């Protein structure tokens, strides 16, 4: 039976805590991983090129580092990265090939913990916690 898939760093970069009163300070969520999976994914330079502008670069680097998978990723984006295949491959690896199967995501502002179990992050808030 295939191993469980997990939350990728690409998606982690889009996630934000929605606890009441937290607002933009609910990002980025701190990752504490107890089980990480690294699994090859087909490289598509076009995909990576288009994803990069959507990412919060600093947060991505921090997250990769916290998992011990920084993989020589530069801390700052350089100009002309679209043509740098070597760079794109590194980004591809960090975005798509590193997965958190078990662990937690923590809201940096409220401290609220969101568990990741069997690759699925549970970000459901109770009525009290919710913004609306």
């Amino acid at each position: 039976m295939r191993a469980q898939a997990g939350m990728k760093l690409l998606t982690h970069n889009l996630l934000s805590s929605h606890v009441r009163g937290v607002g933009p300070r609910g990002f980025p969520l701190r990752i504490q991983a107890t089980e990480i999976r690294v699994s090859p994914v087909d490289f598509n330079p076009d995909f990576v090129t288009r994803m990069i502008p959507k990412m919060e670069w600093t947060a991505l680097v921090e997250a990769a580092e916290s998992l011990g998978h920084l993989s020589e990723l530069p801390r700052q984006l350089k100009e002309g990265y679209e043509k740098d295949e070597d760079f794109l491959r590194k980004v591809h690896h960090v975005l798509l090939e590193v997965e958190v199967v078990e662990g937690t995501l923590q809201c940096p502002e409220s401290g609220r913990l969101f568990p990741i179990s069997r690759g699925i992050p549970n970000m459901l808030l109770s009525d009290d916690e919710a913004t609306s």
Partner: protein
Amino acid sequence: MSALAPEERPPSPGEPPSPLPAGARYFCTVGRGLEPFLTREVGARLAATEVEYVSGKVFFTTNCGLTMLKQLKSAERLFLLLKKQPPLFISSRSKGKVFNEIQRLVTGDPLCWVRAVSIWRSLLELEENLPPEVAKPSKRKTGENENIITKKLKIEQTRVMPGDTECQLQKQKNDKIEEHKDLTTEKENFQEEKSENDGEKEVEHHQGKLTFRVSCRCSGTIAKTFTTEEVGRVIGIALIKQFGWKADLRNPSLEIFIHLNDIYSVVGIPVFRLPLASRDYIKVAGLRSTIAWTIASLAEINVGAVVLDPMCGLGTILLEAAKEWPNASYLGADVSDSQLLGACDNLKSAGLMDRIELFKFCVTELPLHSESVDVIISDVPFGKKFKLGKDIKSILHEMERVLCVGGTIVLLLSEDLHKYLQDYKESNITWNSR
């Protein structure tokens, strides 16, 4: 209208079957309301020409092979067109006269049937990649012929037959078995007759021991006077008499599909055993696959898009989308553990675990940045989970918030919900639709 394009001709002895350069004519059954989408799809995917649709069926011509044909996503079933003609004239005529007309669907133009079966065989053979000698009709013994058909069947036999035509066939089955017994003595005479007829020499070559089953659908005026069993029987007997085929209800090599209604009389040969709508990559479907694909196709998913289904259930829409547009990032969320488990299972069976990620969160509280999602596609489960009013408003508000400028939302709504939203739209001045 016959299945054959004008340039086509049956292969003469010593010549391999034509690779269908001029194409063949097909039709698909399609769910009501999806006709325009299928029309668009056959044009885009198969470079189809002469496309027309009439009430639940889309007719088209293409020279694409089975592999491409199998890719059709908004169709129910695919058939090789054998005959399409105006509806049978029923009203004041005697039953006998109408039966004669039904019979003439076969006897009126036997060559049309021969050619259609020949095209059908060519299609199957092309997929099998058989060596040329085996494909040449003159050298082919009827025994070998059977093997080719059986081989194809073995591959497909591992799947379970769908139930849509079974109920009609069950009744037909009993009738047919009885008749078959009656016909055995007559059949010997027919074999002799056949060999004398020059026009049917071709028939002998190609048909030989072909087994068949007739599947009938009658609606409108004709259904008031005739049962599907009666119509099926007339056609079946005509086929046995005309071509010497054997009826086999359990495992025929050839299926004949007939649909008679007030708009047309259509005869076709199903190209695949299973409906196209039954996907081999979806383990348990939530929403109907054809509708799920259509929703995704309306969303214009580009490379590198972030696609969200915030009420994904078993993940059917995401599966269809990820299969067709693999170079995007797919996120699915639900509040139900059992649904997420089912979705997870589906992803694994489809081998799409790398493309689609699942989350547990609620659509009214999306834990995503504003303007971070390019596409939202979903089936809104109105009535079961969400009520009109506050819930729907907050759902739409959240969706709008996370959607990028220029992003697309495609939602499947019930009638009531749609009406509600129309009213809401008109009354709410601050509503922004993208």
